[in-house]
């Protein structure tokens, strides 16, 4: 637990220091204005408004206060509060990353288990090489292929956005609109995400199948079902859960590439836009959100692991 606190402090401190350590006037980075164009009065006014006239430690404390009150400042480009922007984007990101994580987890775990159970057979080796091939597909290419086939060629699904703009749909039509927009990005993310889960599952289960206690279970007369569900499953799933929890943490960050390819209004796209427009406060806020999500996910994995593996419970 203590480690997590240290990481949070380091991340926040870095985030606070970076604009102040970067070359040039921090005012340019913090206030986002062309300093050279300002009159001294204007400059002093901005310095006072963003608090750059206070001693560094006061600024630091205030930064912490801002974070706790959810005040991340304003975007340079839209001048809107960054918190609002993040709240607006987060649900979309969670929708597609969450769904695709679910699909990759289910498909990856199932196929990985089948593969390991039939280790060395043609089915296992075929599946393994298939997964390695998929793993090597660039996600932007996959996204573009899906768009050109399903959206452009066949016109089955929309090619961009999360909802049809200015359509004012309601009820089930609105839900279907959201689903139809999510299908392609979710598919692309699921395909890209499955091999990792599959590999972890297959490897973990092969490891478990080779353990002495599996032989003990067979020596007791346990049937294949009992061996699989009674002895293999729980020992296999522990490392897989950890991998999935960490992926869930990264899911909050969205995926910059897929969201950009599908012009999907998630956090990944927000970051892409911020980078393109040098919108530093937005980037910093996004960085904090990502860090927090990854930490929470790791913490969840740490808390979950002892429930599965009694050896990691401290007395």
């Amino acid at each position: 637990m203590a480690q997590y606190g240290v990481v949070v402090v380091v991340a926040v401190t870095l985030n606070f220091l970076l604009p102040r350590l970067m070359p040039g006037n921090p005012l340019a980075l913090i206030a986002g204005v062309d300093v050279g164009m300002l009159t001294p009065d204007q400059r002093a006014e901005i310095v006072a408004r963003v608090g750059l006239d206070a001693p560094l430690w006061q600024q630091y404390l205030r930064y912490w206060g801002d974070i706790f009150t959810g005040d991340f400042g304003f975007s340079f480009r839209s001048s809107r509060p960054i918190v609002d922007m993040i709240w607006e984007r987060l649900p979309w990101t969670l929708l597609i990353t969450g769904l695709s994580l679910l699909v990759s987890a289910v498909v990856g775990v199932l196929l990985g288990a089948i593969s390991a159970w039939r280790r060395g057979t043609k089915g296992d080796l075929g599946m393994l090489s298939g997964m390695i091939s998929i793993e090597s597909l660039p996600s932007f290419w996959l996204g573009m292929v899906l768009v050109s086939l399903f959206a452009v060629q066949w016109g089955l699904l929309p090619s961009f956005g999360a909802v049809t703009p200015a359509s004012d749909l309601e009820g089930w039509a609105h839900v279907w609109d959201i689903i139809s927009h999510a299908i392609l990005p979710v598919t692309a993310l699921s395909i890209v995400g499955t091999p990792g889960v599959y590999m972890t599952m297959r490897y973990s289960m092969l490891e478990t199948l080779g353990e002495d206690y599996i032989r003990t279970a067979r020596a007791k007369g346990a049937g294949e079902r009992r061996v699989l569900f009674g002895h293999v499953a729980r020992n296999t799933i522990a490392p897989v859960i950890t991998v999935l929890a960490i992926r869930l943490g990264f899911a909050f960050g969205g995926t910059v590439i897929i969201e950009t390819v599908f012009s999907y209004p998630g956090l990944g796209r927000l970051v892409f836009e911020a980078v393109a427009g040098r919108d530093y406060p937005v980037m910093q806020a996004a960085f904090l959100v990502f860090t927090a999500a990854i930490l929470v996910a790791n913490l969840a994995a740490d808390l979950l692991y002892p429930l599965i593996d009694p050896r990691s419970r401290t007395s």
Partner: protein
Amino acid sequence: MTTRTAVAGRGYPREGASGEPNLLEIENLMVRFELPAETVRAVSGVSLSVAPSETFALVGESGSGKSVSMLSVMGLLPSPPAVVSGSIRLEGREVLGMPGRLLRRFRGRDVAMVFQEPMSSLNPVHRVGRQIGESLRIHRGVARSEARRQAIHLLDRVGIPSASIRVDDYPHEFSGGMRQRAMIAMALACDPKLLIADEPTTALDVTVQAQIVDLVRELQAEYRLAVVWITHDLGVVAEIADRVAVMYAGRILETGQASDLYRATRHPYTSGLLRSIPRLDRSVTTRLAEIPGAPVRVVSELAACPFDDRCPLAADGCQDALPELEAVGPEGHSSACIHHHEMGSASSLWPEGTAAGRQDSEEQPGDVVVSIRDLRVHFPIIRGMRESRKRAIRAVDGVSLDVVRGKTLGIVGESGCGKTTLGRAMVALVRPTGGTIEINGEPINHRSGRHRKVVQMIFQDPFSAMNPGMRVSDVIAEPLRIHRLADAGTARERVSELLTQVGLPPDSGGRYPHEFSGGQRQRIAVARALAADPEVVVCDEPVSSLDVSVQAQVINLLADLQARTGMAMVFIAHDLAVVRHVSHEVGVMYLGEIVEKAPRDQLYEDPLHPYTKALLEAVPVPEPDYDASQRTRLVGDVPSPADPPAGCRFHTRCPVAVEGLCSTVKPALEEVTPGRWVSCHLVSPPAG
């Protein structure tokens, strides 16, 4: 094949045992593993039978096919790559080729198995009780609560204290001995007729081994079990086996009643195995008898005696045909040696020989090389990011010792007694918490550098202690480079010289460690240790991972090298017989402390500390009919070194502890006679 008459076990009348049909009959069993690179023939034509309530010992070195034979009885060999043929009958029913569904009814119900490593053989995520009850749920379909109730009963029966509480523990909360007891409870759950025990005591301490052997003997009488005891150690099974079969290279070389096999041995291999066991009841003035070479790995069909190249009786004819078992004595005693009638006594066949220049321990004391005073090594218990200041593992807790030039100091004790930590502290691999270690009067230094060359270490497992990606010549030359003892040209010469010294071909340096057998790898480790020309070599269990026949080779090699170089040795081991064979002085450790320290012969002939006595009594004697009933057995396991008992640390397990004294007052390590130190209230201090 005629049915052998079972003979009632000694000391335990087994009603109705004789005349019953055999429980297990194996005929011409062949097992081969078809691996991508080669086909390994693990078992080549084994036939044996086991009668009800009989104890049958299957003895052999690694790769002899002993475990593979019994795993094929259980149908537990992975197939592919295993291909099994021949015939295996359980109570007259053929199990080979039986569909899995039917075979599973036998497993765990009629035949149960106990494995070598109790920790890895128990599922870490399930409670012990649940795992014991599982067979009952599978075979008898009992309810969960009933399975748990019976698990408690079984745990109680195998000697787990407060079984009704421990039933809900996880395997990692049990000690090694308790885990093996739990495995036995699991095996007994469905009241099987045959128990296959695959090296059940190999991973355990000698004191715990004795407990487990006693337990199995008791249970066998109570449950009328037949037991097949698989082991590499002829000593362990001598006391309990009715019949023995000795396997080598997938064949049975000799089999018969235990008393005939041990006393009227009719195969050179069996006699060699018996001779290479260091024994407590023989004098130590000579080298151990050794079997040259290493166990073979059979990759093509056997056409000749597989033991030929290691056998002192090998002569014309041994290579001509594969010798079959033929009757050589009463009650089924048979041997697969065409020269069995030429076998003389074991001592003439496998001479011990005298070591050149091996010095007697009664000589003048030499100068002290390593001097350890009040050494303490405590490992903090880390919780989260904080170290607990109060609690620590007191691995070594106040040890004072001297290591003398040209002599060997033996350190013995059960696992967890701190002997390995002590050894590592001497080579500065762990940092002491307190006390001093001086080498030649200089305190040891934890920085790397040339001063490290005076003390070198040989580790237990030669497989993992060597970088698998380095050639042997580089492994051996590394100390030469680090300490700049040779330039590139002379280094190569020195490596060949070292390889010759340890008995390996001088040109084998270009090969990689995995191309060598365990014994050869330990020889490489010895060469590496010697390369730096050290004054002290610390050997941490250097032979415990080796085959019995190879152990003697390495022990003899170390003794010869010591005689030649005059180096001092610290020999750390759990095996008292091995330590006795190599040491001049022996220290006995318990929970981080030395409890007794004495010149070898005094310690072994007249042990004073109750712990030393108990350790010595736990050593198995390779004699059938040895009366073990007079022995005192140590109960329980070593307490946690994080929380050692107050007073004398041994009082919780001591058979003679005095209430109120031993549990409260800590005895001091006192010199009772010159050179002899004991820490026990019950050993009288020096007069005056």
